[in-house]
């Protein structure tokens, strides 16, 4: 999807450091030479177009609660069905098909470890597929706020 210059500037400037002030969108507008209404309008549209998942905080997972990366090997012809069941499980926030015997990879979060474990047990039981459970041992770089390479995009 091609975005105009103002949308690109909004993304380039505000993937982090969104103002914490009474009128944050007005502050952003002033810095980018737009109006407050225009900033709000653009952010709403970008959200509707699925360019943005939201405007807001990204929580540090180790402080926010419990989370875990898991994978299952679904039979090829049942991928969509198994994926739909995973999506319905409480706390699942990412679910991707990947090219491997373990072909469905998902992240589950919960308020605490016990709840997470219960949810995973329940899902594993429902799916009747052995689940690879891969908690994080050590993070070296976890930040998806990287600079967008607008020139290279289709």
């Amino acid at each position, binding site marked *: 999807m091609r975005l105009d210059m103002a949308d690109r500037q909004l993304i380039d400037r505000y*993937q982090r450091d969104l103002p914490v002030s009474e009128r944050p969108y007005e502050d952003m507008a002033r810095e980018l030479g737009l109006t407050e209404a225009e900033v709000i309008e653009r952010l709403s549209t970008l959200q509707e177009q699925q360019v943005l*998942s939201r405007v807001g905080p990204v929580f540090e997972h180790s*402080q926010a609660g419990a989370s875990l990366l898991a994978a299952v090997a679904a039979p090829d012809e049942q991928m969509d069905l198994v994926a739909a069941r995973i999506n319905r499980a409480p706390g699942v*926030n990412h679910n991707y098909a990947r090219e491997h015997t373990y072909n469905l990879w998902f992240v589950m979060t919960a308020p605490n470890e016990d709840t997470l474990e219960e949810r995973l047990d329940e899902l594993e039981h429902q799916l009747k597929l052995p689940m690879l459970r891969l908690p*994080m041992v050590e993070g070296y770089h976890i930040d998806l706020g990287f600079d967008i390479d607008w020139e290279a995009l289709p």
Partner: protein
Amino acid sequence: MNLPATRQDQNYLFDTQSISAWGLLRLREQLENGLPLTPRPYLALAERTGLTEQQVMQAVSQWQQQGLIKRLGLVVKHRTLGYRANAMAVWNVPDDRVSELGKALAASPVVTLCYQRPRRLPNWPYNLFCMIHGIDRNRVQSQLEQLVLEHGLEGTPHAVLFSNKAYLQRGGRYVSDR
């Protein structure tokens, strides 16, 4: 191996005499869905959580300082923009080298995520994970080859798992139920 991902010692319920703990919990729940796109988003959050606008802004600022909020801003869905070649590269590296290699790989501008996870033998022998969010599959392949060369990973058992479909992608819900 059962590793705790929750730091029980983390006390985010600061200044509980003047700010209600329930209000803060409700605020965290609301924030997981993002800021309202209205002229005074922190006031809107205050109205939903029974706090004042000042208390909401104070809580958000403190959570940023404490690191509970890692960043505050526009959360991009890269796939929509055209980042369609998402590769998860995994290696089986010796335990005594995983930290050093992880830190080195993490410094590369093409690596968007990098972490250590446990092996699950015999089916999953890999302990070092790198994510590359790329636009073009061939370009990601050559970036990976470059990483292997730069970090002496030739001959290290590895796998590259491209993702061909996202069934679900949204922010983590730690406090809210869904």
